[in-house]
Structures are given as C-alpha cells and as structure tokens.
C-alpha cells in the first residue's frame, strides 16, 4: 500500500509534465508547474509516513509513541514557500510577456530561435 503513494506521485508528475510540454498559454504553463510541485510533495510525505503513527506533537504523549516523521513535513512547508515565490515571479513574467507582445502562446513567440 505504501508503494501506491509513489505511483500517484509518478502519475501527477507525468500529468504536470504533459501539461508543460503541450501548453498553449503561459499562465496555464505556470499552473502545470504547480502541479509538478505536488508530485514532489507526495513523494516527500510518502517517505515520512509511518503506519499507525500519530501526528508529530510531542506534548502530553508517552515517550516512545510512534509518530510520523516531522522532518519531511518541514521540508514540504519550506518547499511550498520557495515554490510560491518562484510561481509568483513566473506569473509576473507571464503578465509582462503578454503586455509586451500581445500574446501568451509560446508557439507564437519566435524571437529566440536558433
């Protein structure tokens, strides 16, 4: 059952990558990148899950209680903050792109060929 989480992550990853590769709109592209983030979060959380574990709150519970790993949750939260910043930057670039060139379709912009 543990392995199912990794397959879900793989599926989400492939869906996000398909979206990025075939996207026709820059804003849609950034949303697909956000979907890719979710795949990495699923992998992180699956790595930290312990069957039968309680949330990692160490107040008022006896020593030796099985909890899930708090480190991966901290990694995930840090990563959410980092990727939120990057997504904001990407979206602002996408808006500027539309303002400067009148289109948000990657196929219609050819300034950087070759």
């Amino acid at each position, binding site marked *: 059952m543990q392995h199912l989480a990794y397959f879900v*992550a793989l599926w989400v*990853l492939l869906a996000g*990558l398909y979206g*990025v*590769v*075939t*996207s026709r709109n*820059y804003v849609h*592209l950034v949303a697909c*990148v956000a979907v*890719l*983030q979710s*795949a*990495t979060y699923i*992998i*992180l959380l*699956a*790595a930290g899950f312990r069957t039968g574990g309680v949330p990692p709150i160490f107040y008022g519970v006896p020593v030796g209680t099985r909890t899930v790993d708090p*480190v*991966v949750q901290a*990694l995930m939260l*840090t*990563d959410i903050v*980092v*990727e939120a*910043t*990057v997504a904001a*930057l*990407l979206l602002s*670039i*996408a808006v*500027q*792109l539309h303002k*400067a*060139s009148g289109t948000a379709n*990657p*196929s219609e*912009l*050819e*300034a*950087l*060929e*070759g």
Partner: protein
Amino acid sequence: MSLVPLPVAIPLGISFLLAGVHRHLSPAVSRPISAVVALANCLLCITLTAAAMNAPATYWLGGWTPRSGVALGIDFYVDPVAGVIAALASFLCFVGFIYSRFLENVGTLFDVLMLGFLAAMCGFAFSGDIFNMFVFFELMSAAAFALCGYKLEESSVTQGAFNFAITNTIGAFFGLMGIGLLYAKTGALNLAQMGAAIGTTPNVYVVTSFVLLITGFLVKSGSVPFHFWLADAHAVAPTPVCLLFSGVMVELGLYAVARIYWTVFDGAFSARRAPVMNTLLLIGVLSAVVGALMCFGQRNIKRLLAFSTISHVGLMTIGVAMLSSAGMAGFLLYVVGHGLVKGALFLNAGVLLDRFQSVDELELHSKGRRIPVCGILFAVAGIMLAGAPVSLTFLGEHAISGDTEHAGLGLLWLVFLFAEVITAGAVLRLTGRVFLGWGKKRPADAGARNIPEKRETTHRGRKSYGWMLVPQSCMLVAAFGCMFIPQLGETWQQGARFFVDRSSYYGTVMMNTAAIGPIPLERSSLTSSLFLSLLATALAIALAGLALSPLWPNKDSLLYRLASPVQVVRHLHSGHVGDYVAFLIFGIACLVAVLWLQIR
C-alpha cells in the same frame, strides 16, 4: 568567532537592509556599498580558503553539533575548493557592480538582487546539508530569474527569462524528488551522515536518486541535453548578469554534482565507479561537441559566448568525470580561468552594445575599427579560450589531460582540441569581422535571427568608453597572473585531495577530528600539454581566418550540405519552452537507462 557563516550572512543582511530603504536610496549610494560588500566577501573567502588548506573548517549553525553519529543541525563546510569558488563568485559580483555603474534605469533593487544572488551562491558552495543546498539553490535561481528578466519591457527578454525559469524550476523539482528518495533510504539530510548510511551496493534505488539529484544540478550547469535555456538567458540578460551566469553560476551546478558524488554516493559506487565515470564522460563530451558546433554558427555575440560556455562546461565535466583528485584539481583551475576569461568577453560584448546598440556580428562588420583596444582585449581573451599557455585554463586542461591519460582514456585530448579550436575560432572570427573589417559584408548565410537590443547603458561620450574597458582588462591580467601565484599548485592539489576523501569529510564534519595534513606536491611535465595548447591556438587562428576568407563554403556548396546535421541540431533550439522540457524528460530517461544498463 568563526568566520565561516559571514560570506553568506553579510551580503544577505545588507541585501535586506537595502531592500528595506530602497525607496529612499539612489543607486549612486547603494551601488558603491554593494561593491564594497562584494569585495569584502571576496577577501573573506580567500582568508577562509587559506585557513582551510591545513584543515577544512566546519561550522554548525546555532551550535547544534552532532551527537553519536546523528546530525541534529545544519552545517557549513569550508574546504579549499568551496572557498575558491565562493571567492570567484564574490570577485565576479564585485566586477559586475563596477560595470553596472554604466547601466541606466537600474535602481537599488538590482543591488538587492545581486547581493542576494551572491549570498545564495556562497551558501550553496559551503552547505553541508542537502536540503540546505536545495534552499540556497532555489534562492540563487529565483534571484537569477529576476536578474535575467530585468529589462522587462521587451518581449524577447521576458521570453528568455521565462524559458530559463521554467527549465530550471522543473530541474529543481527532480532534484527535490531525489532528496526525498535519499531521505527515505538514509534517514538523514546531512551529507556526511547520508554517505555513511547509504550502504555499499548501487541498487536501483541509489541509481534513481543519484540521477534525479544530479539532473537538477546538470540543468543548472547547462549540460546537454539540459542546456537549451542557457543561450536564451544569456542573450537577454543585462551584461553584468551574463558575467555572473557564465562565470560562476553554471559552474556551481557541476561543483554540486561533484560534491554530492564524493560525500554521499562514493560509498555505494566505489566498487563500480566505471558506470558513473562513463555516464558523466558521455555528458561532458556531448556538451563540448554540441556547444562548440552551435557556437560557431551564431551571429548574436552573446549567444555565441553562451554556447561556448556550454562547450567549456562540457570540458569541466570531463574533469569531474575522472572521479579523481587530479580531475578535481583541473576542474577547479579551469573554473577560475574560464570564469575570468568568459567574464571579460561578456563585458567586452557589453562595450559593443554600449557603443553600437548591437551585438550582432554581421551588423557590426568593421564598426569596431573605432575602438581598437576593445578588439585587442577580444583577441587576447579568444586566445586564452583556446587554452594557450597564458592563462589558468591551460593549467586546468593540463591537469585533466594528464589524468585522462593516466586512466587510459588518452583520446579525450581530441575533444579538448575540438572544443577549444571551434569556440576560440568563433571568438577570433568575430574579432576579425568586427574590428578588422575582414570577411564579406552581410553574407547570405545568416545564423540566428537578430534579437533587437535596446540601449542598456548611459551614453556619456568618449571618456566613459575608456573606463568601461578597465574591468575586463583587470580580469584578463588576473587570469594570466594567477598562473604565477607561488602557492597555486599546493592549493589546487590539496583542495582536490580534501574534496575526494569521504572518510576525512565524515571525520571533520561529524567527529570534529583534524583532517590529513599537507601532502607533498606532485609535479608533472608541461611539455605535452604545451604542444597541445599551442596547436589549439594555431588551429583556432587558422579557423577564424578561414571563416573570414572567400574559401569558406557558402549555402549552395556540397560542403555546406554535409554539415546539415548541425542545421538539424540548430532547429531543435526553437525558443519554445515545451520543447526544452521535452528534452529534459528525454535526457533524464536516457541518463537512468545508460547508468542502469551499465551497472546491472
């Protein structure tokens, strides 16, 4: 008090301070402050490197030292290699600040971003915890995206910045997946602890996490087939930012690959090093060849230099791929030499942009006759790129070639020759065309379409032109002069030895034991490398002359049609971000397949 966290803390702190008061501060005040900070950072890193020559230093943030083999906190580890790369980053940042004095419409926020970029690069080089490396990597990337897209009004700039941002972010996600898998296997995030816990067999788990991790860093380093973003980003970024990208940011990606391998994965792969070596060699050779071929066909000078960076990074990858201390010593020498020379070339391109509002080689035909000193600098830098025995790159190439012969891969010198001749030939060709007026005016076979450039500098007449050449002259002099530093041989070899010694890394980080002392210097004869480098220089000059003469084949000739595979490769560089990501996925799949098939 330890000096180790200062190269990260000081630029970051000043960056926040400047961001807080940026509405009340003019660039005339913030730019000198930032330049002084960058210079101080450089001196600090050099001090740390000198101190680390006998024993690398570890600093546990917050005083959380490890207990009974478990790392509780995050550490910074400074050995000579990390110190030299951080010093190079700080120095190039300092030069960037000096040059950005000439830029117009660049406010205090530019300094904020540059200082943040510098702090992140130093933190990335020093970090001893893999997730901490990832966070600094993302900070470095975010600052780089913003700096690349600084001139937001042009659509080509935003497109280039967007391609850069999407490709690198997706690469970073793959790296994060590798971190997750590694954490699941080893239960640790500290590099030393992971290296001890990873086991001794390269099973599919280890191979997958290795490939995922190095993918993120190889995307950053612009290795084929993850390199498509590099040319776009360099073509549109402001000149001091290009200087930093080519000079140190892409090399940091390779540094991370080497660091991760030697601290974490060497235990698992030590019995089967050849597959890793072959895979990295394949990437290096491919990057060197593709980069060189693409470089020669460019007409936009900044794109030409970007592709030559890809090619030279391929050569550095060969040094890393040797998986030995001599290879790492050569890598370090090459990084410093290439950073200084390529930085000088980009600043020269900036001078051309300032004088003539164009970096298109065909458009600039014979216009450079009015600024001959710039032409001399271009020619000198081109000769240094060819690996002539006048710069650090020669010493780096000597170390790497010596090691490849040692390992029985002697034919790799052909790759070095090919890459150096073609990239230097391209630079010398453009020197001849722009500054001497050689070559046909506007030949029919045009390369990449001209990207219209807006003015980025303030025009202040003849006087400022002379001052604009000072930074790159100093860098070229430094690249030449560094060859003669008396402690040079010891620094590189000692640093490389510390870098590849996993048990001493574990001892220094986790158990606070002193590392191995200085080891006697190995001296090797320079004659064969001297011959090779002089041959490369002569061939580069000959190639440039041939390209400018009437003998060069035009579009209709048979020779041109024989080179059609190169045209196919060039069409793959479409500027479309979906294509780039498709190649990224394809590249990862190939890497996993190549590595796994060799290990089974």
